[in-house]
């Protein structure tokens, strides 16, 4: 896995070891779907057999029509829903063989999620929101958690707003917090579902840039759903969701924006 070699400001030996033990035991694809199919209870099938692989450090965009199943795919990848048929492997582990608790443990160690509608915890301050994954997924002590979260907040440009509650932030700022929260525990994979969908295009542009920069800085993989072909074009690969399967986009470059 290549992430260990990436530069990350202020990453000390201990934290490196931390990260290694969390994410380096496996060096195959971070995410792998084999013929994954899914239907919501009582509805027709949404995904008909998705085959897909995401290499370490790779950044992939998924586009497609509304209702085509993009979000559903991310949910399967995160282990929030279980595939009806086929296999989903996260960091080399087959999700089907895991119970709810084990899936949750795997998710919190390997995955960071950025939602379209931020999903910050309103009862926690911004800093506490960012500390949350550290508390859940690592055994860093309180001071360490505070320090790492603070650093991550500074990295997204909100170092001075850690004591505020989410309701006192703008949408763009809230999404920055969400990005910081998704990255703070150095997961192997970031799943982002239209992270700029709730923001105006200029703010969206900034946030997207920030996300890419942070992903690059930590060296993790990214699977991103977006409606913007222009933004999608800035990633390594663009796939289209159509008729319940993923297809390689006709033209990865030069798509009309």
């Amino acid at each position, binding site marked *: 896995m290549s992430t260990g070699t990436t530069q990350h400001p202020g990453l000390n030996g201990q934290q490196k070891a931390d990260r290694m033990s969390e994410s380096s035991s496996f060096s195959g694809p971070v995410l792998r779907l084999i013929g994954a199919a899914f239907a919501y209870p009582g509805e027709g099938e949404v995904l008909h057999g998705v085959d897909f692989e995401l290499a370490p450090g790779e950044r992939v965009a998924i586009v497609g029509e509304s209702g085509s199943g993009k979000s559903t795919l991310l*949910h399967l990848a*995160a282990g*929030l*829903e279980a595939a009806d048929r086929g296999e989903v492997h996260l960091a080399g582990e087959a999700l089907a063989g895991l119970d*709810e*608790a084990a899936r*949750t*443990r795997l*998710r*919190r*160690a390997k995955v960071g*999620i950025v*939602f379209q*509608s931020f*999903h*910050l*915890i*309103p*009862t*926690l301050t911004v800093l*506490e929101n960012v*500390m*949350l*994954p550290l*508390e*859940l*997924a690592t055994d860093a002590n*309180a001071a360490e*958690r*505070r320090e790492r979260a603070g650093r991550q907040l500074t990295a997204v440009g909100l170092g001075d707003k850690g004591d505020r509650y989410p*309701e006192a932030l703008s949408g763009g700022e809230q999404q920055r917090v969400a990005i910081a*929260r998704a990255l703070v525990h150095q997961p192997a994979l970031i799943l982002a579902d239209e992270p700029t969908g709730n923001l105006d295009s200029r703010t969206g542009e900034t946030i997207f840039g920030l996300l890419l920069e942070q992903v690059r800085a930590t060296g993790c993989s990214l699977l991103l759903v977006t409606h913007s072909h222009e933004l999608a074009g800035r990633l390594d690969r663009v796939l289209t969701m159509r008729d319940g399967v993923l297809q390689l986009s006709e033209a990865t470059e030069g798509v009309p924006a």
Partner: protein
Amino acid sequence: MSGLVLRAWLRDWRRRPLQRVLTLIGVIIGVAVVLAVDLANQSAQRAFDRSMDEVAGAATHQVLGPASGFDEAFYRDLRMAGWRDAAPIVEGPARLPDGATIYVLGVDPLAEGPFRGAASDIGDAPVQRLVTEPGTILPPAGWFRASGEAHEARRVLEAAGGEHEVTLIDRAAERDEGPGEEAGDGAADDMGASLWVTDIATAQVLLDRLGRLDRIDLRLADNEVEALAAALPAELELVAVESRGQAARQLAQAFRINLTAMSLLALLIAAFLIYNTQTFAVLRRREVIASLRLVGVGRRAIFGVVLLEALLVGVIGTVLGALLGVALAQVLVAQVAQTVTDHFFAVAVTGVTPRPLALAAVFLLGVGLSLAAALAPAWEAARAASPAGTGRGGLERRARGWAAWLALAAIILLLAGVGMIVTGAGALVGGFVALFLLIAGFVLLLPWVLAWTLRGLAALVRGVTLPRIAVRSLERSLSRSAPATSALTLALAAAIGVAVMVGSFRGSVEQWLGQALTSDLYVVPAAPASARGGARLPEGWTAGLVAQSGAVSVSSGTTQEVVSDRGLVDLYVVRPHGDWLQYLPLLETAVPREALGARLAADDAVLVTEPFAAHHDVGLGDRLSLAAAGGRRAFEILGIYRDYGNPQGTVLMTQAAFARGGAPPDGVGSFGLRLPEGADAEQAVERLEAWLAEQQRAALVTRPGDIEQESMAIFDRTFAITHLLRVITLVVAFIAILGALIALQMERAREFATLRSLGLLPGGVRGLVVLQGGVLGVFAALAAIPLGLGMGWLLIEVINREAFGWGMDLRLPWVEVGETVLLGVGAALLASVIPAWRMARMRLVPALREVP
């Protein structure tokens, strides 16, 4: 109103059946409890009234004599002298073989007509057989049906005159009617009809009153009263009927007030429950309101659907609740009847119908409060046209603002309450007003205290993210967590308050019994406990008792109802042991204690009990005009002592004082024997029993332990109903907190889903929810301790003292307080199990998709 709007609103019943059903259950339970308590309360009142009316009938006045009755010849003289509207009565309690206590009324059927015809159905009853066949008796209407007997039955009755077999006659059958369709067999006959009517001659045998009467009922015009009073011999008194019932009515009043207090409490808790569930039912769907408003649905249409639903839930819940309440009332009514029987009369309350006022009250509670609780948030939500404006955030911010205002109001109420107590304004009613001011003040203060407690807790767990989430979300949902916590606090405080009151009372009674029972053995007439007051033993037994038991000292005591200038009072005439004053729990005396014994024996002087002093508003040095041997004399009150034996109060007089100027009372109510140091009590009992078996009168030997046990059993039965009510309020509070926790968690579903997606394990979610329940439970339990102790103190020092005249030593039942605290925390934890389980198993994706 558009069908789609209606559908948009009501669809929730299919989507979240558990929550909507909880709303309905909230209304049902709330209504049921309030109605049941009111029914029990009202049945107690009816039982008293009816017993009183039945016994007194249409009489305006009664001629009364000594407790042992007076010569029946006087009745003949009275009629001869032209007083025709008069009916002789012999009455008293008796016991059926199955242990039930009944009240026997012996009448002269020929003279009865105008008196009790309506009340006890004697007017057209088969009087012929009562007169011609000795040993026949008419049970109350409906007794035959209830007991499953044919039209005639034989039973052995145990009463003051010993055991006698009597023939029970069915009134209905004698009138040649089918048993199922007795004339006048309406509610009136079912209720309280507890009199067993017989001919006076039979009653005289049963009740040991040969040749004697207990009273004569009269109907007098105002101008006749004085003439008759003047014509009466010295041992007889003419008493107006109202004054007779007064003391008992006063007591009934006190008993009712305690019940009313409980029912108001139940009402308060039920109101919390209904408010909470109904408000939640609307708030839960505020996005529906917002979206409907956005597409242009008018405010009125939204109100229409909310109103319709609240009305349906309110009406259905009220109807079901009323049915459940009537069923629950049967249990309570049985308890009430037992209490009344133990203390006052033998009553049989078999059924009650809710009175219109109570029905109106529960309707207002069930339907009115449902509407108010649903419409207020609907109005709030409909006012804002955008979904953003309807978020809970705004509401909760306002709730926190209210908390401060409520706290201010609370402090005013608390001050007013304390002021009332300090100044002692308003006596009994004032005591209750003060009690409710304090409770209301305390409850209104709770949200504010809760908010600050949670804030403090949140600061305490800074940096420990998960507990902080739990605590902060409680604080942010104050409009939800505060009412539920208040309900639980109230229920727990009531439990503690009652425990303090009953515990103190019980302790004081136990201690008093230990002091009052200063003999080693007692010899009492063989009669049911409630009839013992009227039964007598021969005075001349003293020598025989000493000879058989080897007693070193014999005391005797006789209670009788005598006429006084304060109406009829209970007079206890004693021939005490020499050292009796050492044991008597005297509260205050007019003369030094050493001199008291001599004064009581030599002068016209008495002692009175604490309740007597309170009810009749008399004190040391006051004089009572009492009918003692030889007629009325004035007696000075030399002391007041503590006594729980007679809630109406007792006057204590030595036999020496009583008999001066006439004969001692004929007969003794009980003998007390002091055995020599180290004597074998068993042996003494055996010898006494053998000796008693040879005597004409049936008597028993009892020990202080037996009397204590019997008294405490009655005591415990009296308060069984309060325990029952305590359980009921706790159940209601449990449902309230369950509803609140479910509501809280449902509102936070999206947050929980987020946490789960970030990696919180299902067990962690359970932990969070249970932690929230625990925090609320601990808070409620801790808050309940001061409130409960305060309520207990007030019940003892103000309310019971005013109502009963009983003083008692405050005892803090720490064990019960501890139990109640554990119960509260346990209830809250238990109530969090269901939401915890639901939250942990929640499907994440739909919850994540929810609109924030």
